[in-house]
């Protein structure tokens, strides 16, 4: 019986005619809706708390605990784990390497993504759908499979080296595999689709009459692009860059397979500390250093654009 009354009540509440009803609405709605709504939410809320929020807070807590030599924890809170990270040049250079490779990945992705996003924006919805399918489908195939494809292409006697040598561009095979370049190629290939879709979304929102107006006023297509399309697509560029940067900073599989021991990025170091050396408190601290570095970089980057020359675009 309860639900029937509930629906009937909502119907009354939707009558906007009387002031009394309007005032009653929020109260009534709240009282009626909480019960069943909360009941439906309970399983998922408990699950997310129990198996996501609590574990995340637990390793934050652990990162402030000092471990003695044999691996037992003493309940001494300290910043020792963080101090160890920031005083050891091995970890600092790993952090710098991670930021550097992530930045290269962002730049390469941006350059490759923009023409596709622009083509999507200028196409019919049907063609847009096909392009979106082509670029987004690889995201649904396991990253190890895509990495294996790159392995075949980047081998010293692989397709890319063979092609470059037969064209006479290089004399000896380039070291593409197990190098920083290999990791940048793998990462940009994996995250390019996100960049394309972010930029395309912001390009769709540009009023086409703006470009027409600038053409009528005598601007060349290039001038229209640089003074209208590009600035107006900045929100998409910024969100695409943020996404690709964050994903690259914390990627484990691609650096492990394409870089190996030659490219010890932070996730590779963290994995080693946790799974091989079993240094859990230090590994937890590395995780949070990685999260904090990513977050701070992203915030500074976004703020710079939101307060820069084209700040109106971000409103």
């Amino acid at each position, binding site marked *: 019986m309860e*639900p029937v009354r509930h*629906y009937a009540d*909502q*119907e009354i509440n939707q009558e906007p005619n009387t002031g009394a009803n309007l005032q009653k609405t929020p109260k009534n709605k709240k009282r009626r809706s*909480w019960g069943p*709504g*909360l009941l439906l*939410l309970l*399983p*998922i*809320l408990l*699950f997310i708390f129990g198996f*996501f929020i609590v574990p*995340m807070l*637990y*390793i934050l807590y652990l990162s402030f605990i000092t471990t003695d030599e044999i691996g037992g924890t003493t309940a001494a809170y300290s910043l020792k784990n963080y101090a160890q990270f920031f005083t050891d040049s091995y970890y600092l250079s790993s952090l710098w390497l991670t930021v550097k490779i992530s930045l290269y990945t962002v730049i390469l992705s941006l350059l*490759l993504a923009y*023409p*596709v996003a*622009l083509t999507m924006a200028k196409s019919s919805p049907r063609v847009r759908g096909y*392009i*979106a*399918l*082509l*670029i987004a489908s*690889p*995201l*649904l*195939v*396991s*990253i*190890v*499979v895509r*990495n*294996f*494809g*790159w*392995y*075949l*292409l980047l*081998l010293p006697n692989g*397709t890319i080296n063979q092609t470059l040598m037969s064209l006479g561009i290089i004399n000896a095979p380039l070291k593409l595999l197990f190098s920083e370049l290999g990791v940048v190629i793998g990462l940009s*290939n994996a995250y390019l*689709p*996100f960049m394309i*879709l*972010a930029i395309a*979304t*912001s390009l769709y929102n540009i009023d086409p009459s703006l470009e027409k107006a600038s053409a009528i006023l005598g601007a060349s297509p290039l001038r229209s692009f640089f003074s209208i399309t590009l600035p107006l697509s900045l929100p998409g560029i910024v*969100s695409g860059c943020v996404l690709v940067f964050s994903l690259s900073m*914390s990627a*484990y*599989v691609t650096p492990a*397979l394409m870089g190996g021991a030659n490219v010890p990025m932070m*996730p590779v170091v*963290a*994995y080693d500390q946790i*799974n091989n050396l079993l240094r859990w408190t230090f590994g937890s601290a590395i*995780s949070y250093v990685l*999260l904090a570095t990513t977050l701070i970089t992203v915030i500074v980057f976004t703020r710079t654009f939101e307060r820069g020359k084209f700040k109106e675009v971000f409103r």
Partner: protein
Amino acid sequence: MKSLGKLRMAAAVITIIYILIPLIVVIPASFTSANYPSFPAEGFSFQWYTELLNRPEFVEAMVNSVKFALLAAFFSVVFGTLGALAIAKYDIPGKAYLTSLLTSPLSVPQLVLGIALLIYFTPMMLAGTSTGFLLAHIVICIPYVIRLVLTGLSGFDYNLERAAAILGANPVVVFWKVTLPLIRPAIISGGLFAFLTSFDNVTVSLFMVSPDMRTLPIEIFSQMQDAYNPIVASVSSLVIFISVILIIILEKLQGVGKVFGGSHS
């Protein structure tokens, strides 16, 4: 103007090829008759596919992958659909916060999530068990189900539910006969997406697997770290084949581009 357009198209085509090429080269490489992987393949044979059947670890990993992906999809769809219904239908305060909370596992790197769950599960005796593995996979699948079902409910006409209730249907019947059939495409897309997310996962799985329980991507990962063998190419082709079938269904139901485009704008 014309030449600029052509330049843009050419650049776009190059990028699309760049995105697709690692997947394209894997399939021909799997038919090699040599005992090292290469592209283009040397000769032609099915030997690395027949070899696959002689390797029990791959068969077992395949079975595990499918089994856990089905279970993870089932549980995340049940939890996610109930949660999304509650958010869409009831006037719960702080809806926006609630949605970000339930999709928050997406914004934490999988590496960090894997580390956190391994450390958290160990004292609970769940590390390296199939229960622990499943719980971790449900966590990473839930955000996608929430998103897809919420999108499916965004145009939902609650008058239909009301009409059924007025005509005397009890809440269970209303859900089963009215609500569920109408949001079924969104739920199926959510389930397929969850299946693929779990089936493809490497990073979180790496912290959850044990020597007795491994999945296909983990098997590929360790093969690639130890020794490169053409069997990696045939297993990878198998993974591509399964993924493509599910992608086709997902595209018919929802549009693959929309799933990602909507989720990150």
